């Protein structure tokens, strides 16, 4: 079970049990929905963007431990960031999740690095990236009820 502990790190289990920023935001300036048809995971990401900055972010939905924890950690990581910083973080995280496993350098992603072990199970990488793709869709498309993004 030891390598399972590297995948399901304590921070992941903690954010799964107690997801942060887990609510709808009535004041959201944009919102996007994501869906992974393979496992039925659904997520909505709510954003309040003001003055070129992610002033607030939250999410709701149902998913596995990895997708829920990833969404929760993402909301903590991008809150308060400028849009450019948030986009850079998306790419940085995406590179970490999709890069080769032996690529030890994941850079400085703070708590998000807890998800790097998921790379070992390629079919689960989409669980970790669903929230981020949904976030990116919300950033790019301010219209409510944009087409759901999918990681399939």
């Amino acid at each position, binding site marked *: 079970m030891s*390598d*399972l502990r590297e995948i*399901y790190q304590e921070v992941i289990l903690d954010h799964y049990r107690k997801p942060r920023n887990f609510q709808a935001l009535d004041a959201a300036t944009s919102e996007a929905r994501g869906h992974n048809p*393979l*496992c039925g995971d659904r997520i909505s990401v709510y954003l309040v963007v003001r003055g070129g900055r992610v002033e607030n972010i939250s999410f709701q939905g149902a*998913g596995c431990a*990895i997708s829920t924890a990833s969404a929760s950690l993402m909301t903590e990581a991008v809150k308060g960031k400028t849009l450019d910083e948030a986009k850079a973080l998306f790419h940085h995280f995406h590179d970490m999740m999709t890069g080769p496993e032996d690529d030890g350098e994941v850079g400085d992603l703070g708590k998000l690095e807890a998800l790097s072990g998921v790379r070992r199970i390629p079919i689960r990488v989409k669980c970790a990236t669903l929230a981020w793709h949904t976030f990116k869709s919300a950033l790019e498309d301010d219209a409510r009820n944009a087409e759901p993004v999918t990681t399939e």
Partner: protein
Amino acid sequence: MSGAAFSADPLPGKVAVARRCHPSLPFDVERVRADFPALEQTIHGKPLAYLDNAASAQKPQAMIDAVTSAYTHNYSNVHRGVHTLSQRATEAYEGAREIARRFMGAARPEEIVFVRGTTEGINLVAHSFVRPRLAPGDEVLISAMEHHSNIVPWQIVCEETGARLRVAPITDRGEIDLDAFEDLLTDRTRMVAVVHVSNALGTINPARRIVELASRRGIPTLFDGAQAAPHLELDVAELGCDFYTISGHKLFGPTGIGALYGRFERLAAMKPYEGGGEMIRSVTFEATEYNDPPHRFEAGTPHIVGAIGLGAAMCYVEETGLDAIAAHEHELLIHATKRLGEIPQVRLIGTAAEKAAVLSFVVEGIHAHDVGTILDHQGVAVRVGHHCAQPLMDRYGVPATARASFAFYNTRQEVDRLVDGLHQLLEFFGP
């Protein structure tokens, strides 16, 4: 190479046909396990417990050998050549059809069409048999527990013709509501297509009763037998259905091959599904005369070696004995149902009175994908997801389930390892 070398090498088709395929030894799970090389491996350092048989089954050495031998010694195209290899390949291919006839209980080999699998069998019937008979307002009746392969082909032909797809509801236990089913049989019903054994719930549907209800009204029937064939003795003639279709890969045979049984009068009255070689008698640019069934439905070079492998797999199952298989699997089902029932956080989805050894379940508070990953790290292979039955998942209000599905090579110890794995999962995720 001398002729003697060839004649010493048995032809798989010939041997298989000649065999009487009666079980010769009493069932012994350790002996049958030894026939399946894939079962010997370890996964994450643990012995593999392969409990994903409803998705696809592992392969016995006898089947692998039949495929290797066909490609190594007896390979050529079928039906046309006058040379020796072509005759051998034809004999083995048509020999496999005879084995499939016997395995499925058809009256004659011409009633067996080789297809890619159950999905193609259903599509063939939907397009060649049902579509020309559909007018706007006509109906096709399926059930709420169908695999996508027994939903989508009917949706396509209904959409093209203005017919309606009707869905017979199921009970909370996962049984077809037969009263509602009967009410849905109307004078507009042109086809009844139902799964024999549900891949997602394990329910064994009352096929005979369904045929009775439909044929009383002159409505043709098709059964999706993908999940039934590895577990139940088939007898399509006795069942009295019009079509019955199975997949090789779930029956310990190769991928990409399956069989469609069609009652001969039905097949003989049907137009081709695809055009090409093999399915014709004569061709001019003005007109083509179609071949008789089953060749009419086997356009192009068929999956020759796949069919030979399927025949070998069917022989293997017959030799193992379907009665013994059913008894062993039933014991596994009883044991697994009891052991999973001891875990309060586990809820079974599908508790029909008549069930095959398939256990779909959800674990309270833990997503099916996490269940699957953590069991995999203990060497236990289960399926997680919607099992290609999304409407069924919606029926039970769950996005996905975990599913343990057993074959005759599984053991009580593997059931116990599944249960141990679930205890570890619960411990891992904590309160």
